Structure formats: C-alpha cells, structure tokens
C-alpha cells in the first residue's frame, strides 16, 4: 500500500491515581498508512482518550515508540509538539471546541495564525476550507448563530486549513442527531476520498462501520481482525 504515516510500537502509558498506578495503554502497536480511514472503537475507560491524546501529540509516550511521518514524538519538546500538532494533525472534537467569541472564519484562520501565515493568505485559505464543507456563506457568523452540524463543519474546516496529513476525530458525531451525524460522516468520507488520512475515535459501532478499517481498544490493548471487530458482543 501507500506510505506509512503512523508507526506505534509497544507504547505504554500509565497514570497515578491516588497512589495507585493505572495502566491506560498496554504495549500498543498500530500502523497507519496514507489515505486510510480507520476507526478506533472502544467503551469509556478503555484507554481510548489516552490513545487519542497520544496520536494527537498532546501527550508523550512513557515507553515504546511513536513515529509520526518520520518524527519520533517521544523525543520532542513542548515547542516541537505544538508545531507538530499545528502542521500534522487536524483535531475534530465531540463538542466542536470552537472559540465562541470568534466568527466562523476567524476560528478557521486560527491554526494559520500560529503558523505565521500572512493575514491575507489566512483569509483566503480559511474561506476555501469553509466552502469545502459547504459553509462559504456563513463565514461571518458566530458559533452561537450556527447549528450543531454547521459548528462541526466549521471545526472540520479548521482541522483542514493547514492541510495536515492526519485528521483526528474524537466522537465527531457524539453531540449530533442521527441525520446531522450522517452529513458529518459523509463530509469525512468525502475528505478521505480526496486523500486525507482519517482516524476516527468512537464508542458507536454504527459510526465505526463507516470507516474502512476498524480497530478495537479494550482495557488498554488493541485488537484488530480483518475489518470487523472481534468480541463485539462483549462490550455492547
């Protein structure tokens, strides 16, 4: 297949909760190639969020290796991690996480601002991304003036604007009704069709089935079996 984007090997992450050590990720290995649409599915407490923070470079592995497009994430400092998040990863959150005081287009411009792109170019790129998600005419609206589905599209536009190799979506449909969820998933499928690598984290098997590849996480361990999750009935 294509070129390797993510290479995770024997990754471990533990937390100390009141003197007790909890292993959130237990020697996890994952290999993701360019252009994949992969769903990571698991119930709450399975280590799903920890894995997503890890893939999203918000956290560093304790032991094991995480290579993102040739960068050894474990060896980067805070400054370099911020740069990686800015350029390599587009975050899409469950609660959209738009800044309420900024208009749609200003929200989309934000990642470009931290990259130091000239204002004129910021506006142009942000407008293009808003058009790509079908919100070209809502650029000057505040998040509160948009519906949930529209807000999530703005968030997708924001994740796209730096043209990152990976889009990382954490329960992107968790706060939406089923009709809007389908629209959002269609947008993501379309983006995958255009060549974006998408990692979708969810607890919803129905959502996960939209992906081309499904990986299960349970008690801090990853399971993968062809395209279908094993032991589906065990946690649903």
């Amino acid at each position, binding site marked *: 297949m294509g070129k390797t984007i993510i290479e995770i090997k024997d990754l471990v992450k533990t937390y100390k909760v009141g003197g007790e050590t909890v292993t959130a990720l237990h020697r996890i290995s994952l290999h993701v190639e360019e252009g994949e649409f992969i769903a990571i599915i698991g119930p709450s407490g399975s280590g799903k969020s920890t894995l997503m923070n890890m893939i999203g470079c*918000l956290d560093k592995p304790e032991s094991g290796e995480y290579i993102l497009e040739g960068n050894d994430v474990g060896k980067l400092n805070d400054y370099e991690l911020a740069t990686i998040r800015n350029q390599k990863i587009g975050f899409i959150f469950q609660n959209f996480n738009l800044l309420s*005081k900024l208009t749609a287009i200003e929200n989309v411009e*934000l990642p470009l601002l*931290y990259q130091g792109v000239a204002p004129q170019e910021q506006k142009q790129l942000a407008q293009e991304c808003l058009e790509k998600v079908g919100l070209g005419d809502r650029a000057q609206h505040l998040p509160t003036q948009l519906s949930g589905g529209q807000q999530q599209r703005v968030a997708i536009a*924001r994740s796209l604007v730096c043209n990152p190799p990976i889009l990382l979506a954490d329960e992107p449909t968790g706060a939406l009704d089923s009709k809007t969820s389908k629209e959002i998933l269609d947008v993501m499928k379309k983006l995958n069709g255009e060549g974006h690598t998408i990692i979708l984290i969810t607890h919803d098997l129905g959502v996960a089935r939209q992906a081309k590849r499904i990986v299960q996480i349970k008690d801090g361990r990853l399971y993968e079996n062809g395209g279908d999750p094993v032991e589906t009935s065990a946690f649903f």
Partner: protein
Amino acid sequence: MRTEGILLKLLPSFKLAWRNIQTSKLRSFLTMLGIIIGVASVIALVSIGQSSSQSVNASINSLGTNVLSVSVLNSDSSDFTADDVNGLQKVNGVKRVAPVISGRITAKNGTTSSTISVVGTTASYQKIKNIKVANGRFLADIDNELRLKTVVLGSSAASTLFSGENPVGQTVQLNGTSYKVVGVLQSSGSSMGSSGDDTIFVPLRTAEQLTGSNAISSVYVQVQSADQVSFVERQLNYALLSVFHDTDDYSVSNSQDVMDAMSDVQNTMSLLLGSIASISLLVGGIGIMNIMFVSVSERTKEIGIRKAIGAKRKDILVQFLIEAVVLSALGGLIGVGAGFAAIKIYALFASTSVTLSLSVTALSFGFSLIVGVVFGVFPANKASKLNPIQALRYE
C-alpha cells in the same frame, strides 16, 4: 519587515482583547478603575502642585528683588522707631528702606464698616514691593512729613467700602477720624495665604497716631545689587543687635531664602502627593492581575483548544499579556482624560490657572503600561503553562 510581521501576528490578539473588554464592559471598567483613579490622581495632584509652586514663586518675585525684610519678633523688648530705621538707611549698599507699622482698625464709609489691616509706611514701600496703582497715587513723602490724613486702599478694601464707586477724592472714617482717599491699588493676588488687596495704607507718622504706637513691626530694605544682598544682611544684623541687644528679638530674611524654602516645601508636597497617587496605580495593577487570573481560569477551555491546534507557550503568554496591557492602557487613557478634567474643575473652583504637566502625563501613562505588563505576566504565565489535555477537559 520583521517588526511589521510581528505586529500583524499580534493584531488578532489586540482584536480579541478589545472584544473581551466590549463583551464584559462593567467588569472591564471596574478592573480599570484602579488604574483610572491612579493615573488621574497622579496627573491632577502633581500638575496642581507644580502650578501652585509656580504661582508662589511668581508672587514671591513680585515682593521685589534684592529685598531683605526685617521682622520685629518681640515688640515689647525695645522701642524700634522711625529714627532707628533711618539708621539702617545709612548702612553701606542699602538703596531704600520702608518701615511698616501694622495694626487693625475699623474703616467706615457711610453705613458700611469693616475691620481691616492697616499698614503705615512711606513712599519707598511702593518702589520696594513693586506695587501698582490702579487709580490716583500711592503715599508720597509729603504725606508723611506733614502727617496728612491720607489713605490708599487695596483693591478689595476699596470694593468693600465703596462698592464699585470711585473712592479717590472721597473720605473714609478710620477709627472715627476722616481720611482722604488718594489712591486705589491694583489687585496683586494672594500669596501664601495673606492678601495685600484687603489692606489699606496710611503714612507712617499718621499710623503712629492711628494705632497709638510708634513701634515698627517690620522694615523692608532694598539692596543696590544682588551680589550685595548677603553683605547687607550681615550689616543689618550687626546694626540691629545694637538696637535690640538680643538676636531672638528680630530676624532678617531675604526673598531668595523664602523662595527656596517655599519651593522646597512645594517639591516635597508634589513628591508626596505623587507617591500616594502612585500607590493607587499599584493597587490598580493588583486589580488587573486579579481579574486576569479569573479570566485565565474561565478561559481554560479556550487555552486548551488553542494549544491543541498548535499555539505555543509564548503565543498564549503574549495573548494574555496583551489583554492585560490593553486593559491598563485603556485605563491609563481614561485616567489621563479624568486627570485633565479634574485639573479644569480645580482651576474653575480655585480660580487659578493650572497647566497640565506633559511630563507627568507621559510618565503616569507609561507607568500604567508597565503596571499592566508586570501584573499581567503572572496570570499570562499561568495560562501558558496549562496542560492542554486537562485544559481541553475543563468545562
């Protein structure tokens, strides 16, 4: 090019800071209030202090140049009379002397009467003290020699007794005796709390009769040139000792000494007022720091989002620092306006002119910016150090 780029990058932070101020107007105003009061009071107090010290200097100058004044501190100990003053006239370097007998008498014109200060003196007094006559003339030597019952009125004494009429040529009753008004003085303004305008002047020898005493209370001595002042001062001290026999009974002071002492007092006052006002600026800064800390915890989620999409520590730090500085700068600007208004209002009520001290305005505005930076750093640093994972989870 480079600085332009940085400014462009900071522009959204300024916009956001402005938007935050607009969305919570009352809170922002209350936050700025400390800075506003601080800047306004520094500007107003120091400007008023400086202007009043200028006007004091001006009025001391108007007392005459190269003038020494002899004050009799203990009038019981000796009879210091006009003859002794004539002795002072002979001291080397003395240009002219003006003895003064002072007292308070009742002045009456028709039914209007008023208790008023009277100064008995000679024609020299006008030349030594730079007195300007508005109408008529000042006392002349002949008034004194012939003990004429003539009187010159200070401007406000004239308006009290004659209420708008021209007093020159009319008579006024002083302690029951008729005096002819020969002149009215121009207003000289008040200096150091005593107004010369409320005084009337009669010839020295007439004053001896009027007040029933021939004891001189003070003497103004004009020296021929500035470099002789200290020499003459010593000579006067020597001459006076032989009259009084005790140095505690009299004092000789020169106008330069008075001026120096007054400007010392004024400078100390300005400094004191300025420092008290600066403390309120500092307190204002603490107010800003407090509200910025609140703002950081309220906006934890926002900080998390910004960090997730690639904001570096310095980006967050600069953003919050800019917000603190925008708050304090805006407070500073409003403070400058308020200070200016306070000066105008003061000038209106005190009916003097106060000039805005530009250096103090710039200084206090600059200080408000520094306060913003200094007290903004701690909250901004706290914001920049937040862990993005925990910040994102914050609701």
